[in-house]
């Protein structure tokens, strides 16, 4: 009621605890900021939207995997993915992603850990690593990062205990946003260097507005493990577009794995939300991740950022109606029209890549030499990367509708060239 609200407006911040640069536990931060903490805890919710959110599937916990609920399997939903990823850990287990609360468990217990030995690098994006990195590095964040990258996953796992926490996004003194992820700091430096800006330091040079996307860009990006040191690297040396990233991978001759059925050296794109968003009209209009995924919400007389990070479709009034005066159903439909178009083209590309894989496989089995298969394999590599770029991007095209469709068009074209190359040689 009004009285309470007038009161609240005056006491927005109760300093109950002293928070320092080593306070890891969100529960302690939560004593000073109970409203944000309450919402943060709600990332356990699982609700499915047409293409997003997630579905809570019960499972029987085992010793190896104690989870009693998982998200639905994307491999069962679309078995063509298994063919595209044949020979890679993703073909074993790949699920719809869900809320932040699950990130550490989902990584620890995914069967991808069984399918292949994973490095400590993985931790960068699935745990609160700021304090652990600092400790490991003797006060030096980058050193700690380098050390953990080189551990086997199970060893690294012992150093962390929380999913992403307050300290991963906030400076404990000012509560301002802060970048804590070495790979993003370095990724932005190379990106800016390519644009002619030298020695870019994201923590001192980014605006507050930019930070509202950068904190997410720490993890929601395409990445690879560079060299023996398994250094986490964001492939932005030539830019953020799918084309620039592929061109970089071609230059450094990077393969994620050798395709089991065709023998092609291929690359898997992973969650390039930050890169795709960058190509869209919202990014161009200054609309950041936090505007839609952590919109302001009213609690009494206060406006706070909704720390229940989730699909905006589950929160249309706050996420969209600040800027768009269409009613909720209309906005939902607009999203779905975009997503349906992307999904249709994704399906076409998926059928096409399967047929290319089969063609190369058959040619290989019929005794074609590597030299004869080279062109088709190189087209498979390109086509698959483009298709995966949209497939792995979690908004089903919404973040940049026309760009997503363009990328799929390019993918289909590479598949065409591959199929023709096979038959004409």
């Amino acid at each position, binding site marked *: *009621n*009004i*009285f309470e*609200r007038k009161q609240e*407006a005056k006491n927005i911040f109760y300093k109950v605890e002293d928070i320092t640069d080593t306070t890891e536990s969100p529960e302690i931060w939560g004593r000073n900021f109970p409203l944000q903490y309450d919402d943060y805890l709600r990332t356990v919710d699982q609700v499915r939207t047409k293409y997003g959110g997630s579905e809570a599937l019960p499972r029987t916990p085992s010793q190896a995997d104690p989870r009693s609920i998982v998200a639905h399997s994307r491999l069962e939903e679309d078995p063509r993915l298994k063919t595209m990823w044949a020979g890679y850990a993703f073909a074993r287990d790949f699920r719809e992603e869900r809320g932040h609360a699950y990130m550490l468990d989902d990584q620890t217990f995914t069967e991808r850990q069984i399918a292949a030995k994973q490095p400590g690098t993985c931790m960068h994006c699935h745990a609160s690593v700021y304090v652990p990195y600092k400790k490991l590095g003797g006060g030096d964040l980058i050193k700690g990062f380098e050390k953990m990258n080189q551990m086997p996953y199970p060893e690294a796992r012992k150093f962390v205990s929380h999913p992403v926490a307050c300290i991963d996004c906030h400076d404990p003194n000012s509560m301002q946003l802060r970048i804590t992820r070495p790979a993003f700091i370095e990724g932005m430096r190379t990106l800016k260097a390519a644009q002619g800006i030298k020695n870019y330091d994201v923590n001192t040079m980014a605006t507050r507005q930019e930070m509202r996307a950068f904190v997410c860009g720490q993890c929601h990006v395409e990445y690879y493990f560079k060299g023996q040191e398994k250094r986490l690297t964001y492939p932005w040396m030539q830019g953020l577009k799918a084309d620039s990233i592929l061109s970089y991978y071609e230059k450094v001759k990077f393969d994620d794995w050798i395709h089991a059925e065709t023998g092609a050296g291929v690359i898997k794109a992973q969650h390039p939300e930050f890169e795709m968003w960058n190509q869209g009209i919202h990014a161009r209009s200054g609309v950041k991740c936090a505007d839609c995924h952590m*919109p*302001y*919400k*009213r609690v009494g*007389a206060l406006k706070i950022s909704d720390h229940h990070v989730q699909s905006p479709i589950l929160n249309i*009034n*706050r996420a969209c*109606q*600040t800027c768009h*005066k269409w*009613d909720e159903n209309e906005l939902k439909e607009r999203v779905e029209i975009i997503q349906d178009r992307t999904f249709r083209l994704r399906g076409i590309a998926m059928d096409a890549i399967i047929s290319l894989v089969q063609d190369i496989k058959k040619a290989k089995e019929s005794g074609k030499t590597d030299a004869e298969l080279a062109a088709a394999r190189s087209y498979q590599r390109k086509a698959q990367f483009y298709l995966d770029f949209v497939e792995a991007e979690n908004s089903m095209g919404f973040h940049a509708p026309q760009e997503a469709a363009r990328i799929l068009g390019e993918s289909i074209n590479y598949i065409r060239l591959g199929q023709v190359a096979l038959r004409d040689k």
Partner: protein
Amino acid sequence: MFSRKILVITAATTGLFLGIGIYTFLYAKGYSYITDDPEACANCHSMNPQFNGWIKSSHRSAAVCNDCHTPQGAAAKYYVKASNGFWHSFYFTTGWYPDNIEIKQSNIDVADDACLKCHQDIVDMMKRFKDNNEKISCVRCHTSVGHFD
């Protein structure tokens, strides 16, 4: 018996609403609401975005909130004010309104008509043909004249 029960509940509820209404009215400086002062609207923090937008808008020196959000003619004006006023207090007190307020079509119509109070002349050419002519919505193109938010 049955209908009496409803009556009692209705009476009690009405009393409660009235009570809340009057309390809200006084506490939130609702008395200033019947004036045309935009600050009166901004007494409610719910109206802050629009107030802040209005301050920066082209209409700051031309039109106050009520110029656009109440119809022409004293009776109609106070009817809309009273009706909106009751619901305003009600929603505000209960907190049952979305974070981003969605304007009702009837209130868009009020705003649309209001434009003509001042801009009749300039749009003569657009509007002049025949009485049965559908009106053209100004707000479709000029959404942000009153306030960006």
